């Protein structure tokens, strides 16, 4: 039986998409955990104390325990070879609000929990069913929520660090980010279709609202301290939007294209990678992929257009990631062997670069050896760029064929109509001529036409 065009198409495209999704999330990332500067790069998580000369802590996922093989795994032995060569790259990490806990998810489906209050300790290594894209601690710090590529959210207990993850909610589209409202009442998830879903945390099957408005995948989410009933989101459509969490109402949209310098290509939408907030909530920074600037916005609740563009910080290179430390200094990580980190302080109405600080040297020194081990190609890979909506269209093909068919049918009918009309006309003429004695054409001649 002939397969439909659509089915053939799907069979070809879905495996291609699956391959695209296997790539790592951010190749390198920076975050802060109290006074510890956290850096992830390849399969390694590095924690460097920014103030004191303490030993760095390194966790290397490539030497971490692998999942214990079950009978089922053995039967899938044909997958064995690919499992061994798969990278252990870190896909995402998160820090708890107090800075006492850190968790990461890697390419080998591990979820690792760390305590770091006085010293670093890897508390547990648990496993997930599908690769994760984002994680977040609850504000109460009792649970770790993990979002995966199949669209599901699992909860991992912090209090019982060995307890298996529990499925909390799911949907069809792949999730790209997850966060919580500040009171832990709502789980907020963002997917690759551009939908943001707000679900009740205690009963996640109950969807409170959808924040709909982005035209492309949503990569960044942030609940601002200045307005905890609001949500900020960033997308591949080049906008940052402000929402009311409970109603899903879109309050404001900020097009980041306006920040672009005229030299850069105007037809390429900037893809938002990260939205960060200074500890006091006064500065909101937006990082877009392959753009050498950071756009700053402020949230002004008393104003109609609550999201107000504030300033633009131009950088010497496109940043890999950005983060605020606990003192409100902005750290920018760049792929530049001479100067990996730039640190800025907001003073006198502008972002001033701390030229040479002890902190930066200490961190750079600790990070360089790790960074050098990662291949250049992996360092700047941005997996979600593959998620831009494709322009292929199986409808156009079908419509073309349909039009052709209808045209052919029309022509056929018209031709048949003409033939019939001619036959009719000639028959009438012939009948008239028969009535008179002379006839110029014989009935037999009609057959030949």
């Amino acid at each position: 039986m002939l397969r439909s065009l659509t089915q053939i198409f799907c069979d070809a495209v879905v495996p291609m998409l699956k391959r695209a999704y296997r790539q790592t999330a951010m190749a390198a990332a920076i975050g802060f955990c109290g006074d510890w500067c956290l850096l992830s790069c390849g399969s390694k998580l590095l924690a460097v104390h920014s103030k004191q000369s303490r030993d760095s802590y390194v966790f290397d996922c490539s030497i971490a325990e692998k999942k214990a093989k079950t009978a089922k795994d053995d039967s899938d032995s044909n997958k064995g070879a690919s499992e061994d060569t798969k990278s252990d790259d870190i896909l995402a990490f998160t820090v708890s609000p107090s800075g006492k806990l850190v968790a990461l998810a890697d390419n080998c489906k591990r979820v690792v929990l760390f305590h770091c209050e006085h010293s670093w300790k890897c508390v547990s290594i648990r496993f997930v069913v599908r690769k994760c894209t984002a994680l977040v601690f609850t504000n109460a710090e009792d649970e770790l929520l993990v979002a995966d590529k199949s669209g599901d959210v699992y909860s991992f207990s912090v209090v019982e660090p060995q307890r298996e993850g529990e499925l909390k909610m799911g949907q069809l589209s792949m999730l790209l980010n997850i966060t919580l409202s500040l009171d832990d009442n709502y789980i907020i998830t963002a997917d690759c279709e551009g939908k943001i879903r707000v679900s009740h945390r205690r009963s996640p099957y109950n969807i409170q609202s959808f924040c709909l408005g982005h035209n492309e995948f949503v990569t960044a989410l942030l609940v601002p301290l200045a307005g905890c009933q609001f949500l900020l989101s960033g997308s591949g459509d080049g906008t940052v939007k402000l929402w009311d969490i409970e109603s899903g109402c879109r309050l404001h949209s900020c097009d980041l294209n306006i920040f672009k310098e005229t030299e850069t290509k105007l037809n390429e939408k900037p893809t938002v990678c990260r939205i960060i907030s200074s500890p006091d909530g006064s500065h909101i920074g937006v990082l877009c992929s392959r753009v050498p600037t950071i756009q700053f916005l402020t949230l002004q609740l008393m104003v109609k257009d609550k999201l107000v563009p504030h300033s633009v910080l131009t950088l010497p290179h496109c940043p890999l990631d950005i983060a605020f430390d606990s003192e409100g200094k902005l750290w920018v990580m760049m792929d530049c062997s001479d100067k990996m980190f730039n640190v800025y302080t907001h003073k006198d109405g502008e972002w001033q670069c701390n030229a040479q600080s002890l902190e930066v040297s200490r961190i750079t020194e600790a990070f360089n050896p790790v960074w050098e081990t990662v291949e250049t190609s992996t360092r700047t890979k941005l997996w979600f760029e593959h998620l831009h909506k494709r322009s292929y269209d199986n409808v156009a093909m079908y419509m073309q064929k349909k039009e052709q068919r209808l045209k052919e049918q029309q022509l056929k009918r018209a031709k048949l109509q003409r033939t019939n009309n001619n036959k009719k006309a000639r028959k009438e003429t012939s009948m008239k001529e028969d009535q008179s004695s002379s006839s110029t054409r014989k009935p037999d001649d009609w057959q030949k036409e």
Partner: protein
Amino acid sequence: MEVSMPQKRYYRQRAHSNPMAHHSFENPVCPEEMDWSQLYPDFFTEGVSDKEMSRVEFADIGCGYGGLLVELSPLFPDKLMLGMEIRVKVSDYVQDRIKSLRASQPGSYQNIACIRSNAMKFLPNFFFKGQGLVYTITDVEEVHVWMVKHFTEHPLFTRVPDEELVDDIIPGRLGSCTEEGKKVQRNGGQNFLAIFRRIDDPNQD
């Protein structure tokens, strides 16, 4: 404009289309921005205020060749109905069928329309949150058991018992007016019906 009835043989497509694949659809970004006037022109004439504007109240998820829509249209002439179908050819067939019916019977069938989309992903883009009833029907008993299990286990749905459906004219028609339904009848098969009502969250504080 082609107004003669479309012939099914030109619109045949196999029953399964992968909902996880990335087809390109024209979805509204959100329900507020959906322009229903394109689908139901008679219901959205000039001068109709937002309050008076009709809303789609029936949705046929996976409407196939439109049998149910066509059957229910004259029975609920004031209710707007939308069929959602993921397959290109099949959704096009329904659209052509509705165009043809509207042309041949002026004033009728203005309340039904069909849209090509993936309901599993984009239902929230079209519709606001609402209460209501879910009618499920299948001739495969395992599917029926599976649907009943999941809806029953879901805290936000409860099964509507048969006694409450005595006055509902829909259940009786579900099994007979669609292509699949008619096929089942011809083959002497059985249809399994289950209807559920959306309820408030029993676990809500």
